[in-house]
């Protein structure tokens, strides 16, 4: 009970961790069903109505209830106060409220799941969602609407904390880059989330009360919905990937025992992504009957937003140069992230390219691209971060061998699952198809086979993490030879985080010259 009323950011982070993991399991289960269905072309396993509901629930659960909160609400919540030498977040009670709002939003989604689902796709395009879908659109929309407030409050909490709660001497440019990434993420959360909330609320009004916003039958404009939806949902992609980039920066630096190359470039590229990310939503609408000239503006802006990501990749790579590289489990995830995110980012250039996107949009190429970014990027970063800070969060070590094996299985399984989907997309297989012409079968079978490997890879960490809680050897305060303030306090940290408030006298990433002892 003390857990459910806790105001300790570390405990709230663990509450998030539990629920986020449950949602990851549910979303993953739907992914298994999707790949089973697509392993043969006739769509015989589930009828198309059921299939449509499964990919919709996969999207809603994974995007809104797993990816968006995953890193910020667990690792960010746990680490931001520790990294800047604070006792807690600025508003501990609001932090707890965020978690409860998330739970209420989640309960709506559970209600939708149990009562028969929704078949609109996670994108809720009108007028299908507002006038034609026979699923529980209103409940699903309200669930996401409510959950949005959780994200807004978390973002607000982070921004105020980072502004007001830094320890003496912790200047802006002494902050770890993880904190910079979360600052940029929080900006998107508080600026973008209200737009999706309003959009879904309008959708609920149109569906429930037939007030015309989007359906031409009521005098609305169906494409208006897409503009509003992507005005939030494209920046939301950066809510998912920026924290992961922050994690990877910490990991690469720590396990190269070297300052990140180009600290200020990495910090400002996070901010640039957050700002430019708001100006590219129209690249989702190139074939929507949007004007040709709008398409050109959105295309060129989409290329501009790709540049800060490229800068980060080059800086991470340069960080390893002349470092002392240790291939620990978190580092394997970090390197895996660089590889998969690079492919995900580069294939984004195909979709920003007008003449290319006309052929590729709404095909499996898009599916492959955003899974490389969301799963190859965001989830690799999340798992890397969990492996990196697990000893800090729980004071226990996990088995190094098993965790390295599972990291490699995930990397291989991921590529087998999603690389064939690029080829399928160029061949012209549309997304959201419950059945498909037979010439697409070989690649689909390959993808489904890869998914079984990927699924296994995700189960192994679940087992050894649980095992470590009870049987894992105790973790020292700084098992990795890392440099941040969070490693200067005990594992797990005391409720007040630090016995005495730390005073910061140096830049971030000042590694000790002492020999690093390999623990994990």
């Amino acid at each position, binding site marked *: 009970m003390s857990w459910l009323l806790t105001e300790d950011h570390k405990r709230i982070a663990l509450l998030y961790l539990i629920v986020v993991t449950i949602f990851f399991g549910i979303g993953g289960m739907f992914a298994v069903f999707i790949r089973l269905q697509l392993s043969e072309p006739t769509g015989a396993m589930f009828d198309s109505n059921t299939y449509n509901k499964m990919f919709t629930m996969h999207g809603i659960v994974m995007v809104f209830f797993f990816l968006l909160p995953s890193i910020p609400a667990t690792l960010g919540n746990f680490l931001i106060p520790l990294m800047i030498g604070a006792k807690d977040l600025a508003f501990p009670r609001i932090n707890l409220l965020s978690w409860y709002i998330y739970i209420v939003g989640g309960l709506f989604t559970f209600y939708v799941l149990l009562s028969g689902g929704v078949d609109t796709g996670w994108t809720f395009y009108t007028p299908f969602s507002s006038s034609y879908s026979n699923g529980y659109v209103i409940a699903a929309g309200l669930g996401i609407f409510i959950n949005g407030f959780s994200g807004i409050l978390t973002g607000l909490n982070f921004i105020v904390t980072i502004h007001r709660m830094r320890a003496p001497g912790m200047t802006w440019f002494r902050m770890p880059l993880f904190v910079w990434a979360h600052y940029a993420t929080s900006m998107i959360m508080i600026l973008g989330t209200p737009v999706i909330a309003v959009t879904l609320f309008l959708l609920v009004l149109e569906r429930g009360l037939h007030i015309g916003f989007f359906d031409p039958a009521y005098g609305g404009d169906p494409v208006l919905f897409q503009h509003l939806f992507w005005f939030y949902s494209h920046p939301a992609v950066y809510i998912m990937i920026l924290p992961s980039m922050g994690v990877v920066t910490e990991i690469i630096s720590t396990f190269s025992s070297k300052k990140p190359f180009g600290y200020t470039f990495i910090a400002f590229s996070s901010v640039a992504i957050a700002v430019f990310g708001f100006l590219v939503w129209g690249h989702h609408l190139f074939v*929507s009957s949007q004007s040709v000239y709008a398409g050109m503006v959105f295309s060129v802006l989409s290329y501009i937003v790709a540049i800060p990501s490229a800068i980060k990749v080059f800086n991470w790579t340069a960080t390893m140069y002349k470092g002392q*590289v240790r291939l620990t489990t978190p580092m394997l995830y970090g390197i895996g992230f660089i590889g998969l995110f690079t492919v995900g980012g580069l294939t984004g*250039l195909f979709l920003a390219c007008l003449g290319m996107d006309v052929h590729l949009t709404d095909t499996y190429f898009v599916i492959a691209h955003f899974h490389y970014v969301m799963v190859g990027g965001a989830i690799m970063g999340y798992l890397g971060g969990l492996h990196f800070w697990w000893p800090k969060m729980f004071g226990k070590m996990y088995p190094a061998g098993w965790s390295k094996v599972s990291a490699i299985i995930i990397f291989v399984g991921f590529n087998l699952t999603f690389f064939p989907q690029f080829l399928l997309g160029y061949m*012209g297989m549309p997304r959201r198809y419950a059945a498909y012409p037979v010439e697409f079968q070989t690649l689909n079978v390959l993808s489904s086979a890869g998914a079984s490997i990927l699924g296994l890879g995700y189960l192994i960490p679940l087992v050894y993490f649980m095992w470590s809680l009870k049987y894992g050897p105790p973790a020292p305060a700084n098992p990795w030879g890392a440099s941040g303030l969070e490693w200067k306090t005990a594992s797990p940290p005391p409720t007040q985080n630090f016995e005495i408030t730390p005073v910061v006298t140096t830049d971030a990433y000042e590694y000790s010259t002492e020999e690093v002892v390999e623990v994990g």
Partner: protein
Amino acid sequence: MEPTGIQLFPVAASSIAGHVDALYAFLVAVSAFFSLIIAFLVILFAIKFRHRPGTPVVLHHDESHSAGGMILEIVWTAIPLGLSLIMFAWGASIFFTESRPPADSLEVYVTGKRWMWKIQHLEGAREINELHIPVDRDIRLTMTSEDVIHDFYVPAFRTKADVVPGRYVTEWFRPTKTGQYHIFCAEYCGTKHSGMIGTVYVMSPKDYNDWLSTGSGEGSMAEQGESLFNQLGCANCHPSVINKNNGRCPNLSGLFGTTVALKDGSNVRADESYIRESVLYPQAKIVAGYDDIMPTFKGLITEDGMLKLVEYVKSLGPKNGTESVATPGPVENSASPHPSTHDAQGTPAPRAVRAPGNQ
């Protein structure tokens, strides 16, 4: 029709497909180059600079703020930016071509409906989930939806466009290879989305004419539109040959493609969307000199019927030979004087050459 197995390119069967494939090859080459370079460096550094237990840890200064570091940062910002702008320009030029149907395209009308494609040809032939077209002719589709958003996608032509309810959208292509190709609905539209697929039959001109001549027996689209025009009572007010100008309603003869002055002082081009809006939402744009007296025909007319009406108004031609255009005889005059002319602005009259379909 295609053998199973892994294929990397779909059939290229349109004038644009080769350009799209070339752009794709360029994008793949750039992506492969950068992916491999990053992978190579990461692996190289992980091996070459691996931590050796027992060796002292050497601390580095942040070289990125030295002159050399700054040059590196500038180089790896500028090169991707330059390449990006090349990609942008190349993609935009293809997109521009894709967005501008050539002047004398053969017109076909498409209505999306859950979960089928309804196709109407000018000559009156109708088909469902099939599209018969001649090879080496520019084809322009004018499309709308009766319900939700669909998307008309032909991978072999490398092009698609959303089919949006409440408006007309166009898509064009020039098939270059005879054969049969998939039509996919690419915008999720509900339960049987994956069943909303069809086939394009690209035929030699002779086969196409043979196919057309089997006809529907219902007359051309314009003729069907004219009978609808009379049936709905439009002819009672809008002046035409049988009904002289009474001053209450604008003359539709010679209207299409011209610029219309509106009561509020603005101008509008009389295109397909304007005709559609004027029938369904007559109060939206009032022609200068006329009153807001027309009732809405919303709910009284299907999207298919609407397309026929549009086609009828188009057949009344651009603004030169006003009175001589429409003739009252419904059947005999189908192929009569609608030459491919241009109006004052040089806008092509969207009139395709008719095959000698009706007997």
